[in-house]
C-alpha cells in the first residue's frame, strides 16, 4: 500500500514540473499524507475549490480529514482523467476492477464530501450494478440496514412482490 501511494505521488510530482502550471495545491489526507495536485485538479473538487476561493487563493494547503491516503489517489486519478477528457468505458471498467465493495463505498463517501458530481454519479452506478441482482439479505448486509419488519409483514410483502424475486444471484458469503 505504501508503495502505491508513493508511486502515485511520484507521478504527481512529475506533472508538477510542468512549466505552465501555477502554484500547486496540497491536499492533506486524514492520515496526514500530503498530495500535491495541479489547480485544475482542485477545480474538479468543488469542496476544495470553494475553500480556495473563500481565501482568495492565499491558502493552498487543504486538510481533508474525512479522506484517507488510500482513497485520495483514486480520486485524484479520476479527476486527472476527467480533465483530460479521457474517461472512457475501458478506463472506468479498469478503475473499479481494482476496488472491493468497501473501497467503492469509501470512495463514494469521498466523492460526496469533495462534491465531485461525475465521480459520484459513476460510483452510484457502480454500486447499483453490484447490488442490482442481489438478494434482499445481501443488500441489508451491504448497507448495514436492520430488518424492521415483523416476519409476517415481510412474508406478505415478499408474496406481493414475488415477481421481482426471479433471477436473483445466490449470496456470496465471501464478499465483504
Amino acid at each position: 500500500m505504501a508503495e502505491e501511494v508513493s508511486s502515485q505521488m511520484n507521478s504527481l510530482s512529475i506533472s508538477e514540473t510542468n512549466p505552465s502550471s501555477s502554484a500547486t495545491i496540497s491536499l492533506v489526507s486524514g492520515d496526514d499524507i500530503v498530495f500535491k495536485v495541479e489547480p485544475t485538479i482542485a477545480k474538479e473538487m468543488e469542496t476544495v475549490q470553494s475553500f480556495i476561493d473563500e481565501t482568495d487563493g492565499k491558502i493552498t494547503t487543504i486538510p481533508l480529514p474525512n479522506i484517507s491516503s488510500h482513497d485520495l489517489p483514486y480520486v485524484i486519478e479520476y479527476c486527472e482523467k476527467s480533465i483530460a477528457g479521457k474517461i472512457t468505458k475501458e478506463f472506468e471498467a479498469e478503475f473499479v476492477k481494482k476496488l472491493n465493495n468497501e473501497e467503492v463505498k469509501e470512495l463514494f463517501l469521498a466523492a460526496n464530501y469533495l462534491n465531485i458530481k461525475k465521480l459520484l454519479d459513476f460510483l452510484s452506478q457502480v454500486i447499483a450494478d453490484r447490488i442490482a441482482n442481489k438478494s434482499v439479505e445481501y443488500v441489508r448486509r451491504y448497507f448495514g440496514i436492520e430488518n424492521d419488519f415483523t416476519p409476517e409483514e415481510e412474508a406478505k410483502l415478499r408474496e406481493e412482490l414475488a415477481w421481482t424475486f426471479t433471477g436473483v444471484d445466490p449470496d456470496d458469503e465471501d464478499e465483504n
Partner: protein
Amino acid sequence: MLLPQELIFQILLWLPVKSLIRFKCVSNTWKEVEGLHFPYVNRNIHEEEPKGGSLYNGAIHSLDFHNDLETEVIVAFDLMEKKLSYMLLLCDYEGSPMHCGLWVYGEFLRAYTMNYVNDTVDIFVMKEYKVNSSWTLTHALPIDVIQNDDFSPLCCTKSCDIVGTDDPKDRKPCGSEINWDNVNSHASI
C-alpha cells in the same frame, strides 16, 4: 463502512425498476421510497426472454401492470408524440388474464390469453383502436395440444389457419408448431 440514508437513496435511483421494487423488502424505510412511483411496471421482465413491444398505429404496445388499477393494461407509447397512454386489456373478461400477449395481425390489435375455465386459448380483437368496449372474442381454441402455458400465435396461413408456438424463446414455427387445422379446430380470421 456505513453510508448515510440519503446517500443510499441516491444510489437506488440508478437501479433497474425490478431490483428497486424487490428492495422494498429491505426495511420499512425502503418500502416507503415512493418518490419512485411508477404508473406501469412490466412484470414479464425476465432477462432470458425479453418480450418486444408490438408496433401498431405508430405506437409501441406492451402489456404492463398498472399499479393504481392493479391490473394488466396495454400501454401504448406514441412514437410521434412521445407520450404514454393505456388501454384496458379485454373488457368484461372473467378472471384475471393469465399468460396473455399482444398480437398485431390483419390490421388489428389482438390479444390472446389462456382461459383455464374452458381450457382454451382465447383470441380477441380490438375492433376500434383505443375503444375498450370494442374487444371481441374471435377464437377459442382448444388448449389440450399445448405442452406448456406459453402459447403465442405467430402467423396465419393462406388458408386462414392460425399457426402458433408454445416455445416463445424460439419464435420459429417448427417443432413446437401448432397448426390448428391439424387439431381439427379450424380457426379462420
